[in-house]
């Protein structure tokens, strides 16, 4: 721990000593610019301007919208210098691409949207700390619902490629079918939940759709009651029911009691196996053929406590 604190202190001092002052430079440059009006912008960027007028940003009935401010220059800044610098680099205005730091791009959006309820916890967002800016996901002029640059989940998969791969597995939530969205569970704008989930615990999130699992049951299965993710993965699995690994091994990892829980179940105990007895249903759903109430039971005695009824 001491070593960690020491390392962080060194980094802090290093940053302080070597930090560049580009932000200050940008501010002084802006002082000499002036607004030219959106008609000038539209003369070159007619398509973009038309889209802006139709968009939510072009609504004059929204009191603080860009339409009631400087229109295009509300976000892009004064355009006087841009008129003489229409090229690809150093265009003289704020452009929403990687040439400008993510924080600076987001600040343009936050100037109006900071007080939005959905952005109340943006400062806690993993996206913010990872230098993801608003315009990485949102298009200011065009777009789908919420002005996203692409529909979910493809938009999210642009960065979260491991999740794309998991979601394509044979057992998955209906994400790629479009029945649910990433944002049904996650809040990309930040929040208190781990992994930006929209709940205070994993189980609370899962119970929103799987309310029958909420119980409360007389016989609880502690790993189930504590965290669904002990046995399930959220995005996709090769194994049915989004299980982390296949039954019976998943169960045997915890249950090695005498008799059938600790027994070795091999290929010979399957439907096609040659074992003449003691298969104990290594076939079909294996343990779950009998112990199917693993999420909780109100059954009598051991039939309930062992999830058999």
């Amino acid at each position, binding site marked *: 721990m001491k070593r960690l604190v020491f390392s962080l202190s060194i*980094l*802090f001092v290093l*940053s302080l000593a*070597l*930090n560049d002052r580009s*932000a200050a430079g940008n501010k002084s440059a802006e002082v000499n610019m002036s607004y030219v009006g959106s008609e000038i912008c539209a003369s070159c960027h007619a398509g973009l301007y038309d889209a802006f007028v139709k968009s939510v940003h072009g609504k004059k*009935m929204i009191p603080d919208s860009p339409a009631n401010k400087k229109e295009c220059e509300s976000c892009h800044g004064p355009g006087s210098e841009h008129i003489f610098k229409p090229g690809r680099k150093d265009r003289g205005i704020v452009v929403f691409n990687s040439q400008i730091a993510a924080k600076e791009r987001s600040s343009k959006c936050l100037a109006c949207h900071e007080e939005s*309820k959905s952005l109340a*916890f943006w*400062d806690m967002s993993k996206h913010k700390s990872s*230098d993801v800016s608003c315009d990485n996901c949102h298009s200011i002029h065009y777009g789908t619902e919420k002005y996203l640059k692409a529909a979910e989940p493809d938009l999210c998969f642009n960065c979260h*490629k*491991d999740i794309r*791969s998991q979601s394509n597995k*044979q057992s998955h939530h*209906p994400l790629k*079918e479009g*029945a649910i969205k990433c944002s049904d569970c996650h809040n990309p704008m930040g929040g208190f939940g781990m992994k930006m989930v929209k709940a*205070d615990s994993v189980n609370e999130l899962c119970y929103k759709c799987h*309310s*029958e*699992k*909420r*119980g*409360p049951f*007389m016989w609880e299965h502690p*790993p189930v*009651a504590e965290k669904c993710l002990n046995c399930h993965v959220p995005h996709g699995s090769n*194994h*049915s029911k989004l299980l982390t690994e296949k039954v019976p091994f998943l169960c045997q*990892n*915890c249950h*090695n*009691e*005498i*008799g*059938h829980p600790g027994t*070795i179940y091999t*290929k010979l105990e*399957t*439907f*096609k196996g040659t*074992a*003449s*007895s*003691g298969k*104990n*249903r*290594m*076939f*079909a759903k294996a343990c*779950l*053929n009998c112990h*199917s109430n693993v999420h909780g039971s*109100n*059954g*009598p005695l051991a*039939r309930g406590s062992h999830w*058999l*009824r």
Partner: protein
Amino acid sequence: MLLVMILFSLPVSYSFAYEYRIEPDVELSGKLDDIEGNEAKFNEYRDIRDGLYGKVHLLYDSNYYFDFRASDIGYDTQHYKLDGGKWGSFKVYLDYFEIPHNFTFGARTFYSGTGTNNLTYPVHPPNTDIRTWSTFDYSVKRKNYGGGFAFDMIKPFFIDVAVSREEKNGIYPMGAAGTTPGGIAIELPVPVDYTTDTLKIEAGYTKNPLFLSLSLFLSEFENDNHKLNFRNPATANTASTTDVFTLPPDNDYYKLSFRGGVKLPLNTKFNLNLATSRATSEVRLLDFLVDDVSGGRVPLTLSDKTFDGKIDTQNYNFVLTSNPVSFLDGKVFYKYYKRENKSDEITTIAEEGTLTNSLFGYKKDDYGAEFGFRLPASLNLITRYNHVRTERKREDVPVNKDDIYSVNLKWSGLDFMTLKVGYEKMHRGAEFHPPDVAPDDPEFINTFVRRFDVAAKDSDTYKASVDISPAENLNFSIGYKNRNTDYKDVSLGRRDVKGYEFDIDADYTFGKLAKLNAYYDYEKVRYSQFQRRLPFNATSGFYPSTPPTPAAFNWGAKQKDRSYEYGIGADIYVIPKRLTLKLQHDYIRSNGDVDFTYHLGDNPLPPGRTQDNIDISNWDDYTLRTYTVKSTYNVTKKLSLSVAYVYEKFTYSDAQLDGYQLMPATTGSNGAFLTGAYKDQSYRANVVYVSIAYRF
């Protein structure tokens, strides 16, 4: 309905003071399919069949607006959504959608009453001629009705209200042991008739420097069937004296939460989240159980015939974020979460013993800090540490202490390239309490078991990725992640999980001619476990170090999953902005196996077994191939035509389902009456569709 009337009436009165636009567009598609094999798997979450599919979008936009969207009209995936309101003042929405989940079509059972909570058969034993059994589908459909409104006109105050009802209906496969232990398994088609009503109200205030929000979430779950009565073929159960399988109880849930944030000097913000919730259920308990032999009902003495379930949770989050100087982001956080089980403890007395349910609860304290440093040379370093202490009411491991360290470095020194590397280490300490039983008690085996969900472990994750865009029309990325977890104190149970994955993506645009894309993902995971086999009546030999005998020995299993997928596609602009041809091929493959090892010492393997014939080579193996050809022709700016052909082939093989038998045996530990749930999942499908879209 009232909301709709308001929505439709208001624009008529006021809209003409402003410019408005109406944008309706419709799309009609005809689909023809040819499916061989398992249609339920093909349509697991879809409803693709021969017929006409409609899609409608109607937008009215002025100072008031409404936006209506409908898709898959009349199908199991239909979705309707109406958004409306007045810009800057209020928003309303109405929503209806369906989600099917198909498991198996054409399942079979000797029971009558499938779909109800009474399963019976006329004469004992049941007819074993499966040709006489009835067929049914395992399928569950969700229907969700929702609506809500939000007021912006009272800024800086806000009120959001959302209500929904979800109806879930269908049949789902569950199972019960006919007799226990060692009896047959009975697969039961369980009726699903659930209704969940939810209400969320949130009100608050948001104006710099303050954000305050108070919200109430209510959820009421109702199950039409609390018990499934079934005639048990393992006993001489009569049609009138049935066995009982318990189903999820009704429950009520509320959550009250307060969230807030306040800006402080030095670009600092303090955020908090305080929440409390309660879930309750009330269950009339069974005061009998069915005798394994006679099938008659044996009375039980219960300390209380009604189980009152009550789970309370408390959650407190405190987070201080700060960006005092441009190159430093800091975050300090604390989270407390407690799950308290205040349910009834019920003692049940019967001839076979006395049993009292234990009440599981836990609490977590999680605190830590995260610092992000924007270093010179376009480096961004994020370091994080958190400590989690978990205390739970559980005999084996009542306390866990987790220390999690992570460091992530991002370099974006070149306009066209971003490089990221990261490392995370987790160390979990566990206070293990061995069972307090005599060495000849069967429970003594648990002295050596460390259950993976709470076992002490060390976990290391390394990751790296690079995104390169050397030209505006070329993007390339590659990512790698390696994860190793060692359950270091484990004698019996899961010992380690090792795996890695990588992905490669590229896309390239040929001017106005075409856009190409390709990807490849690979993942390999290996689970290792070590177990001990003992006979059912064992009173000794629990120590894993005991010399093996043919009946008492250790064994191990290594499960490996190798998955990969790739895709290649092209959007070819045959006539730019007029005719586009889309070609796409995707391939997904999973190859799993299990490698068993008997640790028998000098003892021979059981008769008929060799180290080779026991291993499993098909363990959820599957391939999914998809080919898509689609052509879209924009006849005019308003009218477009599309023709598409999709070929999809899914091949599935698994040792547990290969050679599926509805009745592998009718008695003993090989016995089961199954229904065919999840069998034969392979399919092959050809789908052709033609669609016409018109934008008025």
